[in-house]
């Protein structure tokens, strides 16, 4: 569809932001976070415009095929970054989020099979809300994963007793652990609400693989959060847990939905 051009255009600022992040690491300098923020906002505007055009053309929330779902997911990650990054004063989050968003969008664009037309018949507000909340939750959990990666990078350098200039641009490890935990709780809450809405409103014929996937992800996040709150697992293990679960989501998300019947969100 012609709207894909705007998603391709959105990839340009995301790519520049990623390139800048890699340059900053290589050059041991990181002073222009406002440049990064500007790039992310430009990408987000184009990304949003793509979703708007798609919604207009299909007359539905753009969550009707795997392509739309993963693009919506990457949009939710950027939205969360823009909302949570400044609030939690983790300005460097954008530099870490950009490559993740870029990869997700490139995968969506480069696999045409994901973007097939569907004869989508709305199953009601509950299903749409379930889908929207779930993808938003994955976006939030994506940001938690980015914070977890930042934590692991900072922790690695501190453990290695090596202080490259980039370390001073990262937030303190203690703060990153707190941010990672809080954002995971937020994402997990959204996932839980989305799941409850889904179970409460989907009338018949839900897809067993999708439900199984959702429950599995929910249990995994629930497990690491309980472990964290009960001080059974350390911040490092929690961060690895966040990264591991989210990688599993990223790897399996599109496949699960590719096999699912479109009507059954």
């Amino acid at each position, binding site marked *: 569809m012609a709207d894909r051009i705007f998603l391709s255009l959105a990839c340009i600022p995301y790519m520049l932001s990623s390139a800048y992040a890699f340059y900053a690491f290589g050059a041991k300098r990181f002073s222009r976070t406002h440049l990064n923020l500007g790039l992310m906002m430009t990408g987000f505007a184009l990304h949003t415009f793509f979703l708007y055009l798609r919604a207009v053309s299909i007359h539905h929330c753009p969550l009707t095929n795997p392509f739309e779902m993963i693009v919506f997911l990457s949009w939710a990650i950027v939205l969360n970054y823009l909302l949570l990054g400044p609030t939690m004063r983790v300005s460097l989050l954008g530099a870490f989020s950009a490559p993740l968003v870029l990869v997700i969008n490139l995968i969506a664009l480069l696999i045409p099979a994901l973007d097939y037309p569907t004869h989508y018949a709305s199953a009601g507000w509950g299903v749409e809300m379930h889908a929207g909340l779930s993808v938003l939750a994955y976006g939030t959990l994506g940001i938690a994963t980015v914070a977890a990666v930042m934590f692991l990078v900072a922790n690695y350098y501190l453990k290695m007793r090596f202080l490259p200039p980039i370390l*001073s641009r990262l937030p303190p*490890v*203690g703060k990153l652990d707190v941010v990672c935990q809080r954002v995971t709780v937020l994402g997990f809450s959204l996932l839980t609400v989305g799941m409850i809405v889904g179970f409460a409103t989907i009338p018949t014929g839900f897809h067993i693989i999708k439900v199984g996937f959702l429950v599995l992800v929910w249990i995994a996040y629930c497990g690491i959060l309980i472990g964290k709150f009960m001080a059974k697992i*350390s911040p490092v293990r929690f961060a690895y847990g966040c990264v591991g679960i989210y990688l599993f989501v990223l790897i399996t998300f599109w496949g699960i939905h590719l096999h699912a019947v479109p009507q059954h969100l």
Partner: protein
Amino acid sequence: MNLFCLGTDFNTSEVTRREKLAYTGEQVPAVLKAVSEALGPSEVVLLSTCNRTEFYVATSRTAVDSSTLLKTYLKESRQLDFDLDGETYFHEGAACVAHLFAVASGLRSMVVGETEIFGQTKEAYGKASLAGHTGKFLNKLFQFSFAAAKEARTHSGIGRGSVSVASVAIDLAEQIFGSLKEVKAMVLGAGETGERVARTLADKGVAKVMVSNRTYEKAEELAKTLSGVAIRWEEWEKFLIEADVVIASTAAPHFILYQKHLQELMPRRSFRPIFLIDLAIPRDIEPTAAVLDSVYLYDVDDLQSIASQHLAERQQEIENCKTLLKVHEQRYADWYERAVQHGKTGFGNLPSSSEAVG
């Protein structure tokens, strides 16, 4: 108008002689007045720190004549029993400009890239200006030097990274905890370096300092100076759960804190990060404790190595910094030329370079 600088620093003079040429802040106005009188109509700025004493002069006399007069004044007023020629350096014209810019940027400091000299230079200029001993040549020269130093600091790595054990420890603590306002520190032993680190931490406004030593009276004494609390040696392990930063510098011949202790402690602390600074020789903390999650253990060699690495990085930035300063030196030279032509004073161009020591 001729510009020159006559000075002494840690490279040219030993402290026993340098201290005889040093001036306190209160003495500066009188010295500036006396030098102006000795040299005739001139602009003078005196920069006097623990590492250097320098006179910056703009005068209508020749620089060499003026420096000779200045040396005579110094020798008489300070009653020096040594010859100044071997203890001082003399920079004239463009070399004087380059020297001031390098000084203000911290390139000529004992610890390359340190920032204190910038403030000291500003203060020296402020005093001279206030007392009416500066005119358009030195005003412009110092204003250019501040701009040059700022740019050098911003666009080069000359000031990057801490270069002392105490400041590296503080940087690390901030990298782990962020603000230190809610951090609780524990000092074990009363070693000199440990005390210095603890004092720097206390200056940063940590929430609480606990001090423990085998001799309780010593702990009390140190705790008092740090506005902290003393803990009996038998009890420090009980208070470890509270501490975020532990500075160990005891004279114990064996470890006092083992990996297994910390392994038990960390879940009870909800894996809150703990920063262990082991400054003791032999070491106080079992090195394998570093493998534990949320435990950040640094010994004195680690801190020293980071400080040395930063210092080496600063040294590598000197050339980069000099290139940045060259642009400002040229700008001042251009301004100087225009000022001289405009004033039709006939004193000619800023000498391109003339430098001599002694």
